[in-house]
Each structure stands twice: as structure tokens, then as C-alpha cells.
């Protein structure tokens, strides 16, 4: 992708902005970075020194990352006027590697959602079908890559928010091991679950991006003090003899027959390449969704307390006293899903309920993690569909019952709870919409899942499919 010297950075960036304007109906960008972006492209062209792989590459940055001097909103009204005075480490590393920020992408408000329908700035369209969701919460980033506006984007994944939109948009998205990428400057949703990661067309590109984004950061006490390996080094290893686990407790028989079919076909492809499939048991895996929906709202209810209208962000007018200021600013500033999760989280932490909900969930979390640890004794990685469904029409899920949307995260959520790396790659269409295949790796073993994903892509063409974009 990123290696052709046949086009200058300036030409590339101008083309990028042209495409962004052409496809603005996708609504995947909240703020554009035209002036600074073009300036940087020019200086890269002038510099003439040996360029790194990401030099001059335009990238879309999810609007959850603080970018100095460039509006950062988390797709929320409460931050609609927020200009951060600093840049997130992950973004800074990508910039230092030469990439250029094209703009900040639309997302579910504060990363809470699975369809990019909760944004203050409106829904993002799936490039494959107008009026359909791109997935969430990193919907804008996924759509921008799928539409070909950019070839690389960042997202964040707390319960599946990189992998699931990648699946719905037919591209590749990776959630690293918890602690692999610094969370400094990444506006916190659920601190013990959030991770930043790349979205691109291929596993190889994701490896390049992950190389740049990763690394120990003294400013983030939860970032791992480990050497970042070169994720490209072993990406071409043959998968012969690779042991891939199929999770017994995920009964795929309930899924759409086409989704099942794609999964079987992918299994067959890996078997043809010499991989071996082993059934493994994760006895507590079905508790993932309730566990997640106790922990994530609890942590977010606390993380979002700083949005109080006092030092930054939206402040309501005509308030009588401090409490009134808090209540009105927050109620005006937050959308419904965010409010719901804050309330659930507050409840789960409150006196009398803490043990039954929050603490209980963290105990079950340990059981889930232990299950994975045990299972990884017999397999190298695990495989599941990324999502039980493909993209759906705006408003068709979750309007009556929020849990409908929560269940979209069924396959992705457990890796966040256990802190494990996972990747989603396209593996075909289901009813003319993209479907994704998920590979889950053991702690710090992104190289294994990138390798398996890359070999799959060397032996298939699903990742090359592009939407026609005729409706945009």
C-alpha cells in the first residue's frame, strides 16, 4: 500500500482530501485537518531524506484521540468545542513515523455503541450500502478505509469497536494486547478494557501500523514495559501445523446460515493450508456480555465525571448554582446511550450493589481469563466469526431493547475482558454485505494472529473487494 514512490505526498494528500469531499455523505469525518495536513505533505516532499514506510501516508484518526490544536469531540455535544492542548502518544508516534492526519473520524459517542448510531454528528454510512450501519464504535475510521479515502486509520476497541466495524466494512482491524499501545491521550471510556489499534485493508498494513503505534509509555502506568517486536518479521511463516481452537460454547448453529457457511469456508481454507482445528472449552464465555456490561459502565461512569462544564466542554446557560450547572451541562451534553451507561455504572458501584454487580463481574472476569489461559495450552490461536450478523439498516436494532445491540459484541467482548489481542479480516459476503473472521491470540502474541491473517489473505481475495460507492 504505502510503498509506491510513484506519487508525491502532496499529490496523495490532495487526492485524499478530494475523495473525502466527494464522499462526504458517508459522514465519516467530524473535523478535517486540511491546512496542517497539506503543509506536512509539502515538507515531507521537500525533505528528500530516506523515508519510513509511513512517510506521507494520510491517516484518519478516531476522534477519541487528543490531537493538539485540532478539535477532539468523541462525537459528543459535550466536547463539541474542545481543542486539546496535547496529542495522544499513539497518534504522536504515528505522526513521528511520517503519517499525516487527514481528519478526526466520527464514532459512537464516547465509544459507546456498536453501530455508530449514537454520534452527536449523525450516523456514519456503511460504504457498501447507504443507510446501513458501518459498525461501531470506530465506524468513521472503518468507513474511511473501506471507501478508499485513506488506506490507514486508528480506532479504539473496548468491547469490539475496531474489529466489528472492520468486519461490517470488509476491511482488517486489530485490537492489540491490553497495554501494548499507550492510552495517554486516548479519552477514557473503560480504563481496564480500552485499547487503541489500526484499521487498514490488510494484515500486513496493520502490522506496519502496529509497529509504529506500540511501545512502553512512562505516562501510562498500564502500558507494558516490553520490547515491541517487529510484527512484520514472522508474518510470512507458513501456517502448517498451526493449532486453531474452535470455542465449543459458541454455538454457531443459531446464526444465519450464510454466516455459518462463510465460517466453514474459512475453516476449510486454513485446513487446506495445513492448520489443525481443535475444539476447546471456555466454560464461562457465555457470561462475557453481562460481565462486560457491569464493568464497562462502572468505569465509564467514573471516567466521564470530569465532563462537568467547569474547565472545558459544554456548559449550560442560566444555571442557578453549581449542582444545577453540573446537571444541566451533563444532561444537555450527553446522548441517551451515554446517559444509560453512566446510570448503570453508577448503580453497579453504589453502596449495597457493589459486591453483587461490580465486584462479582470482576470475579467472573478472572474466571474468563483463566479459561483462556488454560485453553491456550492446547492451541496457538482461536477462531470465531467477528460478529453474529452483518451490517443492518439504521434504527433497526436496539431501539426497543438496548440489549439487542449489546449482543452484537458476543464474540469480541471476551478478548477485552482478558486483555488478549484479536484481529478481524474479511472472509466473504453474506447477503451482499461483508462478513468478518476473528482470530484471537494469546497475551502479547499479535505476531501469531497477524501471521495467520496474512497467510489467509495471501490465499484469498476477500480483502481486495471494494464497495462500488455509486450511492455516494
Amino acid at each position: 500500500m504505502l510503498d509506491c514512490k510513484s506519487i508525491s505526498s502532496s499529490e496523495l494528500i490532495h487526492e485524499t482530501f478530494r475523495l473525502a469531499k466527494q464522499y462526504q455523505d458517508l459522514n465519516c469525518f467530524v473535523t478535517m485537518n486540511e491546512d496542517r495536513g497539506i503543509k506536512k505533505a509539502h515538507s515531507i516532499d521537500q525533505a528528500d531524506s530516506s523515508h519510513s514506510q509511513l512517510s506521507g501516508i494520510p491517516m484518519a484518526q478516531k476522534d477519541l484521540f487528543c490531537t493538539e490544536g485540532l478539535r477532539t469531540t468523541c462525537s459528543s455535544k459535550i466536547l463539541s468545542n474542545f481543542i486539546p492542548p496535547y496529542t495522544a502518544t499513539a497518534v504522536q508516534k504515528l505522526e513521528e513515523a511520517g503519517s499525516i492526519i487527514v481528519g478526526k473520524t466520527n464514532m459512537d459517542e464516547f465509544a459507546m455503541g456498536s453501530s455508530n448510531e449514537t454520534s452527536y454528528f449523525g450516523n456514519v454510512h456503511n460504504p457498501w450500502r447507504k443507510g446501513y450501519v458501518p459498525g461501531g464504535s470506530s465506524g468513521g475510521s472503518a468507513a474511511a478505509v473501506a471507501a478508499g479515502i485513506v488506506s490507514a486509520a486508528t480506532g479504539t476497541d473496548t468491547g469490539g469497536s475496531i474489529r466489528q466495524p472492520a468486519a461490517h466494512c470488509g476491511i482488517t482491524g486489530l485490537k492489540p494486547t491490553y497495554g501494548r499501545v499507550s492510552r495517554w491521550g486516548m479519552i477514557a471510556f473503560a480504563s481496564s478494557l480500552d485499547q487503541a489499534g489500526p484499521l487498514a485493508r490488510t494484515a500486513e498494513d496493520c502490522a506496519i501500523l502496529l509497529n509504529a503505534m506500540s511501545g512502553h509509555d512512562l505516562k501510562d502506568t498500564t502500558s507494558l514495559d516490553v520490547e515491541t517486536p517487529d510484527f512484520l518479521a514472522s508474518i510470512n511463516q507458513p501456517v502448517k501445523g498451526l493449532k486453531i481452537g474452535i470455542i465449543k460454547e459458541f454455538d454457531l448453529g443459531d446464526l444465519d446460515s450464510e454466516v455459518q457457511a462463510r465460517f466453514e469456508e474459512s475453516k476449510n481454507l486454513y485446513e487446506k493450508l495445513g492448520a489443525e482445528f481443535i475444539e476447546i472449552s471456555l466454560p464461562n464465555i457465555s457470561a462475557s456480555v453481562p460481565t462486560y456490561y457491569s464493568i464497562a459502565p462502572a468505569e465509564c461512569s467514573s471516567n466521564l465525571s470530569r465532563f462537568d462544564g467547569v474547565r472545558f466542554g459544554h456548559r449550560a446557560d442560566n444555571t442557578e448554582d453549581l449542582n444545577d450547572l453540573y446537571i444541566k451541562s451533563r444532561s444537555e451534553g450527553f446522548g441517551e446511550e451515554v446517559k444509560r451507561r453512566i446510570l448503570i455504572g453508577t448503580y453497579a458501584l453504589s453502596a449495597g450493589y457493589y459486591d453483587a454487580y461490580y465486584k462479582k463481574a470482576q470475579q467472573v472476569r478472572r474466571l474468563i481469563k483463566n479459561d483462556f489461559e488454560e485453553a491456550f495450552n492446547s492451541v496457538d490461536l482461536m477462531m470465531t466469526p467477528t460478529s453474529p450478523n452483518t451490517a443492518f439498516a439504521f434504527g433497526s436494532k436496539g431501539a426497543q431493547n438496548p440489549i439487542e445491540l449489546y449482543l452484537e459484541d458476543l464474540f469480541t467482548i471476551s478478548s477485552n475482558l482478558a486483555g488478549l489481542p484479536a484481529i478481524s479480516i474479511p472472509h466473504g459476503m453474506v447477503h451482499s454485505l461483508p462478513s468478518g473472521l476473528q482470530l484471537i491470540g494469546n497475551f502479547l502474541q499479535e505476531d501469531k494472529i497477524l501471521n495467520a491473517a496474512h497467510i489467509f489473505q495471501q490465499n484469498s481475495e476477500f480483502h481486495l473487494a471494494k464497495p462500488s460507492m455509486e450511492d455516494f
Partner: protein
Amino acid sequence: MDQETVRTICYLARLEIDKEKSEKIENDLETIIELIGGLQAIDTSEVEPLYSPLEKTALKHEDIEASDNQKEKFLKNAAASNKDYFLVPRVVE
């Protein structure tokens, strides 16, 4: 989920819910609480809670100043401030 509980958690979170939406929100909350209440069935006696996926301990840094004064930038971001302070409606203690 009774009215009193809802009022309390709304106050703790400094959120107010429009009257028209309150019934839906209450139903939603009840549904979600039912979902997460399902964990009660799992036996977790003797299980230590896992508050972070990392089995590591905190970094500690040296007691040396390393900070820029960004007073103007911070005050500028606020909805109400003067050249020295963030301003809020007067609090009576």
C-alpha cells in the same frame, strides 16, 4: 427499580432525564440490570476479582519537577474564567 433508586443514581451522576423519556430509561435500566444480574448464578467463592488484565505493578516516578505552565491554555478552554481562575456559580458552604 423504584423511583427513589432512579432519583438517587441520577443525582449521584448529576444527570436529569426528561419526563417523556423517563419511563423508557427506567425500563432500559431494568433490562440491563436483569442482564448483569445473571452473573449471580456463577460460583465465584474464593475467586479474586480481576481489576486489570495485567499482572503487573505500578511504575513509580522520581520526585523531580517536569511540567510546563499552560495556565492560559487551560483557562481558555473553560466556559467561564478570568485571567487567573476558573469560574463557577457561587457556592455557599
